[in-house]
């Protein structure tokens, strides 16, 4: 029997793996890929909540009635995917611009603003 908790723990584990990558990698593209993993983890959590609310016949998990917004979790997932696509395109353009100027994408060497 698979419950909502399974999906929440899966999302948490995935989020933490992505966070570890984002904190510990030196290649800027690898950091971006880790952030994409984190966004996917959040999407898994949101869609699981939407499915659980649908399963409860429009009752929210705390008992309140949510009539027309049963699928709000999936709506949020759509918007997260949209913003993630925009974020990926801008971030990769920035990485390419930095590479053209400094000839490196090692975030340890891009330290102009280091205090």
């Amino acid at each position, binding site marked *: 029997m698979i*419950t909502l908790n399974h999906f929440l723990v899966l999302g948490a584990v995935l989020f*933490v793996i992505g966070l570890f*990558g984002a904190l510990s990698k030196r290649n800027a593209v690898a950091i971006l890929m880790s952030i994409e993993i984190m966004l996917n983890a959040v999407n898994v959590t949101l869609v699981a909540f939407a499915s659980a609310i649908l399963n409860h016949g429009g009752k929210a998990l705390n008992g309140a009635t949510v009539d027309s917004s049963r699928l709000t979790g999936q709506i949020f*997932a759509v918007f997260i995917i949209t913003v993630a696509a*925009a974020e990926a395109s801008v971030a990769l353009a*920035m990485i390419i611009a930095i590479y053209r100027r400094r000839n490196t994408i090692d975030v340890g060497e891009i330290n102009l603003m280091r205090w």
Partner: protein
Amino acid sequence: MTIDVPAVAFWVIAIILVGSALAVVVMPKIVHAALFLVAVFGAAAGIYVLLNAEFIAIVQVLIYAGAVTILILFAIMLTQNSMSRVSNPFSGQWWLAGLICVLLAAGIIFAVNSSPMAAGAASDALPLANAAGGTVVKLGQLLYSPFAYSYVLPFEIASVVLLVAIVGAIMIGREE
């Protein structure tokens, strides 16, 4: 005893998902990491199918496994030779990052399991891969119905966000 096919599918997909996410983080070559990222996106689409979110699953395959992966591979191609032999190295403080992440994971999982929701609604079995309950029509009505309660205005604003992102990417990425 009958086999609970959706539950087996959940465990298989979850193991693939977590394993490929770990591979993305630990692979020493950045191209291999990018290819495992495709597996992460595909397995996440499988999770969405299990959760009766067909539209999200299709969009996931189209945008993430299609477009974002190609973007990332192009960026890797254009910036190759920038790192040394190991193209995807860890920084010096990776152990500190690992400690923070383990603490955060323990905190989140403790919070999930100790919330009052965990004993109540969240412990019911979810109807996985429910063939009768497709959600595409409802999602479409909720996303852009002009008459009923819907998210049509945020949807239009999202298209403006995409336009700004495209123009910004061209401005930032072009040669002077």
